[in-house]
């Protein structure tokens, strides 16, 4: 039953924040939901997270299903980190120990807490600057660790909206909420009575 899995595929992608990298794995690492750790001490009860924290410069580790997200103090030399993390993930999948132990301390925030913090970030850092372009961004909903935003005012339909979202909003939110999975735009950029850009009818 415990045959060693050798064909585990792992691909990596930086999140909206260059200090944070998402590992997409072909196998489940942890099936118990999402676990998030912001220190070596918190990770003590969870073998995979504890081992990842032994790598220099790690600030947080999130383990959820087939995804592991690792954040660091700085974005330099990612491959030296991704190779170590990938080895640890493979070893974890082939070990009999769970990646996260039952009742392990996890600093996973509830969707309500995430929404509250995300709103604070928007009000303090984002909306004052997008307001100068007549824009406004609000949090529509938070499901687990995915944030849905709505871009209103001058942002709606603007060709720069996706840049604002990726470079500005997502980065600022991830600074305060490193456990975020995705930041999605729910705006109908072509709708309403006054979108910034009205697509030509073809």
């Amino acid at each position, binding site marked *: 039953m415990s045959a060693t899995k050798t064909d585990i595929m792992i*691909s990596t992608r*930086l999140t909206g924040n260059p200090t944070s990298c998402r590992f997409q794995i072909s196998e489940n690492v942890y099936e118990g939901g999402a676990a998030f750790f912001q220190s070596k001490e918190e990770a003590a009860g969870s073998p995979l997270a504890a081992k990842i924290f032994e790598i220099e410069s790690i600030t947080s580790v999130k383990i959820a299903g087939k995804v592991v997200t690792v954040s660091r103090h700085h974005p330099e*030399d990612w491959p030296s980190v991704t190779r170590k993390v990938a080895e640890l993930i493979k070893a974890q999948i082939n070990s009999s120990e769970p990646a996260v132990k039952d009742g392990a301390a996890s600093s996973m925030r509830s969707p309500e807490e995430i929404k509250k913090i995300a709103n604070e970030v928007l009000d303090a850092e984002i909306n004052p600057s997008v307001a100068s372009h007549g824009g406004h961004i609000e949090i529509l909903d938070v499901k687990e660790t995915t944030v849905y935003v709505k871009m209103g005012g001058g942002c709606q339909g603007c060709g720069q909206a996706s840049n604002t979202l990726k470079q500005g909003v997502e980065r600022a939110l991830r600074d305060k909420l490193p456990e975020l999975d995705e930041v999605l735009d729910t705006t109908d950029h072509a709708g309403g009575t006054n979108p910034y850009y009205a697509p030509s009818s073809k």
Partner: protein
Amino acid sequence: MTKKIKIPIKAAKAVEEENEFLIAAPEVKKLLDEKAKFSLVDIRTEAEFKMMHIEGALLATRDLVEEIFNKWPKDSQVVLYDHTGAQAMMGAQSLVKKGFSNAKAIAGGIDAWSEAIDPLIPRY
């Protein structure tokens, strides 16, 4: 029937057969494995280079670019790459115009490299 334009990375593979300025990622991997005599030059920003680069690549600083233009033999094999391919292809074109007939760019850039060769170089 007009041909549909494909998305960059997939297109890079198709275009590669037709475009004299491009080289496919697996071929560059082969050159590296064979320890072939060629120079791999990363034309992205220094910050991007520091985040990740293909092992063995040189960062295209101003000094290096001047050195290539002024001192390297015109028959040097030079492979450029950028993030997703477009800029490096223009770079290869201008090198060819200056007489470097063996200059090429990696089709799809380091993004295609991550996809096809080394998935532990994070895409971004």
